[in-house]
């Protein structure tokens, strides 16, 4: 193929029109431009809230234990399906908006409890015996667990007559109408689902922050992230802390999955497993493995980058459909080159 046959990635006319100052002033477009920027920013924060929720469990587990949990995405996928199952069973055509949202939060709590218990059991039975081995063993083990979870999910879904790859529409259809439209905030139309995701992301962030900074267990985890052996030498049973953190990290992955269940960009599907894992890794690596603050900052950066590039594509300025993914992974590559430990990361965590 000659270069001349390559499709144009940037639509020059659309770009010139969008950036033409005289046209903007003449038509009052400057105000519209500001509104668009505010809307893109708000949606970026919404996406960032989702990215934070799916990544924070991964960074907690790595921070204390030095374990890169490749089953994190698979657990999020299970969370999306379990949450969806609860909503499909409980929510009917006559269920009101408030009741539906209440059921959503009950599903969230149930899924968190079940997956936290399952994660704790996984740590005790599978991860604990290989702490003394090289990280390769932990990666292979958790990757194997991820494959098993995905295949079991495919089998179960197929037996239930649900296609595993396209999104499972039934739970997505339970989303109340109030979350589907846009709401005006300071003259800016923002999707209500994003506001809902921002609210949940904020609650998760505050809950994890309070757990880390206001509880004795959180103190052990932060100390253990720096020096596991020293914490043991101070009389703390680090194995118990490992079990709790792995359980909570797993539960948070599943909470992320429940949050994605209503989001038309994600939705329950087996492919959610790898999608969540990739984005979670991007966020924790950019933020700095093991850093709560870094995860929060990186989720915001990735969310806004995603939102801006999505706007560039939907307005036709850029015609390359993979712009968003390419930009996000470019951010990852640039970070690995200029600051491999990430925004807030330290070069070594947890003595690992």
């Amino acid at each position, binding site marked *: 193929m000659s270069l001349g046959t390559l499709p144009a990635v940037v639509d020059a006319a659309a770009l010139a029109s969008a950036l033409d100052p005289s046209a903007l002033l003449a038509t009052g477009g400057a105000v519209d431009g500001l509104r668009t920027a505010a809307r893109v920013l708000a949606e970026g924060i919404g996406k960032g809230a989702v990215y934070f929720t799916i990544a924070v469990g991964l960074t907690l587990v790595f921070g204390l234990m030095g374990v890169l949990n490749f089953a994190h995405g698979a657990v999020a996928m299970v969370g999306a399906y379990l949450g969806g199952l609860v909503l499909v069973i409980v929510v009917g055509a006559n269920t009101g908006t408030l009741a539906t949202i209440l059921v959503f939060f009950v599903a969230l709590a149930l899924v968190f409890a079940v997956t936290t218990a399952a994660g704790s059991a996984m740590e005790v039975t599978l991860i604990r015996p290989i702490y003394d081995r090289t990280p390769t063993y932990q990666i292979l083990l958790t990757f194997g667990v991820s494959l098993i979870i995905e295949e079991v999910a495919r089998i179960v879904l197929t037996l239930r007559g649900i296609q595993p790859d396209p999104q499972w529409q039934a739970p997505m259809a339970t989303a109340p109408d109030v979350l589907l439209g846009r709401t005006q905030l300071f003259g800016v139309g923002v999707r209500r689902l994003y506001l809902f995701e921002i609210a949940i992301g904020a609650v998760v962030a505050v809950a994890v922050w309070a757990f880390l900074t206001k509880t004795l267990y959180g103190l052990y985890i*932060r100390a253990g992230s720096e020096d596991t052996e020293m914490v043991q030498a101070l009389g703390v049973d680090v194995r118990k802390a490992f079990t709790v953190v792995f359980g909570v990290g797993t539960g948070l992955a599943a909470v992320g999955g429940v949050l994605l269940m209503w989001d038309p960009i994600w939705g329950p599907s087996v492919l959610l497993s790898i999608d969540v894992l990739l984005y979670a890794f991007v966020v924790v690596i950019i933020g700095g493995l093991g850093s709560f603050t870094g995860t929060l900052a990186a989720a915001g950066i990735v969310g806004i980058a995603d939102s801006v590039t999505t706007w560039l594509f939907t307005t036709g300025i850029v015609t390359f459909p993979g712009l968003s993914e390419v930009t996000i992974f470019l951010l990852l590559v640039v970070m690995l080159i200029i600051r491999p430990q990430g925004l807030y990361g330290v070069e070594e965590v947890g003595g690992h």
Partner: protein
Amino acid sequence: MTALELDGVHTYYGESHILQGLSLSVEAGEIVALVGRNGVGKTTTLRTALGLTPPREGTVRFDGTDVTGMEPHEIAARGMGWVPEERRVFSHLTVAENLRVAAHSAADPDARIAEAYELFPALDRFADKEAGDLSGGQQQMLAIARGMVGDNDLLLVDEPSEGLAPQIVEDVVEALRAASADTTMVLVEQNFRLAMDLADRFYLVDHGVVVEEGETAGVTSDDERIRRYLTA
């Protein structure tokens, strides 16, 4: 009463045989110094006592209980504290948080931390400061305070003067004297004179075994039985 007893202990790092049948005994209330050249097994002795590097052979008894093979947190919870080489304070935690982690096992953590602040007023002033921002001397004070606040009966102190200016070393010595008022202490120290000044008795370690022991009173590094083990 014997606070700590190591009996015929053999400890390895991988295939490296570090402690080669080392035995020692520390009575309650005394300060015992472990002296010797670099790499002879002094730090490994402390790590073995605390279960961080468990022995392959031999026995470790703490307050009369056989603790060989116990997990480090179980031994520490019985009242054995550690002030490690290079301090190892939690640099991203505040001074107060460092002490809070260590005081979790104390009957009254707040009272123990208040006592530590009384003993080390500088730590009280910097209670909300991240430990990583403290000077070397202040970090050493914090490491000692952290070893004290856990209601420990025995404190294992490793190279407390390492890398500190002489004036700061004097402060650290005073802190250790204060800490030893109600705690038995095992001290590993390269500075022979300092070790002899602080301790009641000493063990001279070489190639993973005790080669000399005795009272510290009147002992100098010029003593022939000492000098040949301290010079390369």
